[in-house]
C-alpha cells in the first residue's frame, strides 16, 4: 500500500540521503519524492510516496523523526491532507485534431504552455488519479511524453511543531584555554 509521508527538515547537505536511506535499508522503493525550500529558507518540505508494508508504517515515521535533521515527519496517507501533482505532457498533433486536444485540455483545466506546428506542451495539476486519466486521454490523440512532479502533500492538521531549544555546550572549562594562550 502506498504511504504518503510529509517531512519538514533542515536544508542541509546529506539530509535527503538520511531520509531515503531509512527507506532503502528496508528495501522499500520510493514511488515519488519532492523536496523544496519552505518560507524559511533554512528548512525544506519533502513529500515521499512509498510502497511500505502496513505494519512498518509507524516504525518508519518514528525512525524519520529520530533523524537529527528532521524537524517533523508525518504520515498523511489517511490524515486530513490534500495531495496534488503536476504533469507536463507533450503531445504530437495533426492539423485535424488540434482543436479537439485543446477542448480536452480545457475539460481537465489544463493549460497550454507551448504550442508548435508539431503539437503542444500542456501543464495539468490535480490528484494523481485524475492526472492518470488526463494522460490516458491525451495519448489517444497522438504520441505523448510526460514528466510528472510526484505528489506534494499539505496536511490540514495544524500539528504543533515541537522544537528543541539551544543547549549550552563547549564553553570554556578551566583547563581549556592553554592552547589559546600558547598561541
Amino acid at each position, binding site marked *: 500500500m502506498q504511504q504518503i509521508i510529509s517531512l519538514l527538515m533542515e536544508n542541509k547537505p546529506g539530509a535527503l540521503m538520511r531520509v531515503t536511506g531509512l527507506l532503502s535499508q528496508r528495501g522499500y522503493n520510493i514511488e515519488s519524492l519532492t523536496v523544496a525550500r519552505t518560507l524559511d529558507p533554512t528548512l525544506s518540505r519533502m513529500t515521499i510516496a512509498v510502497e511500505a508494508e502496513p505494519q512498518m508504517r509507524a516504525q518508519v515515521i518514528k525512525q524519520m*523523526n529520530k533523524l537529527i535533521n528532521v524537524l517533523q515527519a508525518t504520515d498523511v496517507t489517511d490524515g486530513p491532507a490534500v495531495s496534488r501533482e503536476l504533469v507536463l505532457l507533450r503531445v504530437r498533433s495533426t492539423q485535424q485534431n488540434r482543436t479537439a486536444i485543446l477542448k480536452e485540455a480545457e475539460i481537465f483545466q489544463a493549460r497550454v504552455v507551448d504550442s508548435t506546428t508539431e503539437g503542444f506542451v500542456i501543464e495539468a495539476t490535480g490528484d494523481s488519479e485524475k492526472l492518470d486519466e488526463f494522460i490516458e486521454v491525451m495519448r489517444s490523440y497522438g504520441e505523448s511524453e510526460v514528466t510528472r512532479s510526484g505528489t506534494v502533500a499539505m496536511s490540514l492538521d495544524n500539528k504543533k511543531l515541537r*522544537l528543541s531549544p539551544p*543547549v549550552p555546550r563547549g564553553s570554556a572549562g578551566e583547563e581549556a584555554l592553554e592552547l589559546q594562550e600558547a598561541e
Partner: protein
Amino acid sequence: MSSNLLSGSKILLECLVREKVELIFGYPGGVTLPFYDALYDHPIRHVLVRHEQNAAFAAQGYARATGKVGVCCATSGPGATNLVTGLVDAMMDSIPIVALTGQVSSKLMGTDAFQEADTFGITRSATKHNFLVKNIADLPQAVHEAFYIAATGRPGPVLVDVTKDVFQGQAHYTPVSEIHLPGYKVYGDGHSGQIRRAAQMMWEAERPFVYAGGGIVAANASEELRALVEMLDAPAVCTLMGLGSLPSEHSNFISMPGMHGSYAANMGMSGADLLIALGTRFDDRVTGRLAAFAPHAKVIHVDVDPAEISKNRHADLPIVGDVKLVLPRLTQELRDLDSTMKAKNAAPRQAWWKQIREWKSEHPLVAERSDREIKPQHLMAEIDRLSGGRAIVSSDVGQHQMWAAQLVRFNEPRLWINSGGLGSMGFGLPSAIGAQFARPDKLVFAVVGDGGFQMSIPELATIANHWLPIKIVVMNNGYLGMVRQWQELFYNNRLSEVELTSFPDVEKLAGAYGFKGRTVDNVNEMPQALADAVNEPGPFLLNVKVSPFENVFPMVPAGGAINEMVLRPPQPVEV
C-alpha cells in the same frame, strides 16, 4: 569572547579539550598528517592501535567501562572504511563514541583522489549522525554537536569527517558556547500520568517480572533499578547488555533471559502477568518467537527512544523517558501507593516467588566439570572465582561469550563488556585495551575464543607497547564453536569450515611481543595457571585447551518460543 588565529587541527584539539577528551585511539595517515602534527606536543594522549577497526573497538571499551564518550581517529579512505564495523557495533549497542576521520582536500573530493572514499555516505547508516566538515568555520560547532549527540538520549556513534584543507587552514577561533539542534529530541523524566498508571499496574500484578536491558547501564541507572526492584520485590532479569546493572548476587536477580538464558529467566518471562521492560528493545535473541513471547503478560515499556516502543512487542503502557529519571519517579509512586495496594496481592506474589525459586532449583546454571578435561564452563567458573564479581570481563563473540554471561558474576555495571547486537568477532581484545586504559585500577580479563582472538592478534603489540596488565584468556576448543554447535544441531553435524587448525604456540607468540604466555590443557593445572596469570604484574596470554565439542545450554532454537528450551545435549555426539 577571545579570538585567535589557529589552524583547523588546533581548533579541533581545542574542541576536544573542551569536551574533556583525555584519550584518542587512532592510526595516522596521509590526510590526517596535519592533525597528528598538532597532536605531537599536545596534552591529549593518543594510543596507536594496529588496525583502525580496533581503534573503534578500543574507544568502545573505554566508553563501555566508563560511560564517557570514547574517541577514535582514522585517516581517509581505508582508514575510515576500517572503522565501519566498530561504528555499526556501537550503533547496535548504543555506545557513545566519536570517530574523527580525515578526508581528502575539498577541491579533490569526487575526483577519485588517492585514499578517497565517501566516508560521509558510507557511514550514514553506521552512525547516529555524521558530519562532513569542508569549511573551517563549521568545525567547532560540528565537534561539539557530535559529542552532544553521541552522549545524550539513546547514545551512539557519531562521525566527523574533516577535509585536509580544513586541518591545514587557519581561522579566528571563537569558542562555541551553545549548540542548537532543533530536530533532536532528548526525552526526560516521563509522563506523570503514565508513571502513576504504571505504578498501579505494578502493584495490581500477581506475577510481575522486571526485564532490564542495556539502557540501565547506558543511563547509569543501576541504583535506581535496584531501588525499584526492591520496592516492588519482583524477580528481575538483566539482558546480555544489562548484566551487572542489578548485582548478580542480588536476591531478586534471576539471571540472563533469551536464547542461552537460564530456565528460570525464560520461564519467568513466559509465566509473568506483567513484564516491566526497562531500557531494553525486545531483541530477537531475548524474545525467541515473538508471537509466543510472554503470552500472559501486559507490558510496561520505559525507553528513551520512542522508536523502540511497540517496535517488536506492543507496549500496553509506554513511558518515553530516561530510565535514570523515570525509575525514581516510579519508585516514589509505588511507595505512595504502598499502604493501599501492596497487601492486596501478597498471597499470589508469594506463590509467584515460590514458583520462580522452584524453576531456579530445577535447572540452575551450574558450571559443568570433568576430571579428565577442561570443560569451558569450568574455566568460566574459575574466572568468576578470581573476579568475585569485581573484575572487568571483555568478551569476544561466540560460545565463550554465552558461558561467561551465564556463569561469571557482575556485581557492578560496566564490568561486562561485549558485542551484543552486532556480534562482531575480534571485539574482545581491543575492547579490553580500551577498558584497561579507562580503568587502570581494575583487573581486566579479555575472554576470547581461538577464532576471535586471531582476528585481533595485531593488538598484542599495543598491549605490549603500553604494558597493559590484561589477562587474555583464550578459550581454545579448536573450532568456531558456536557455528560448529549449530552445524551439529541443525546441519547433521556436517562441520563445514569451522575447524581452526594451526593455532600458534602462545608461549612463543607472547614471547615474541615480550610478555608471558602459557598453554594449559590439564584440568588439574588450570585453576592455578589462571591464578598465576592474574598474579603476573604485566600482560599475560593464557591459552586454555577446553573440550572441543561442548555446546551451550540451555538453548532456544532459532524460531522457538523461549519456554521451549533445550536444556541438555540430546546424547553424546561422536565425531
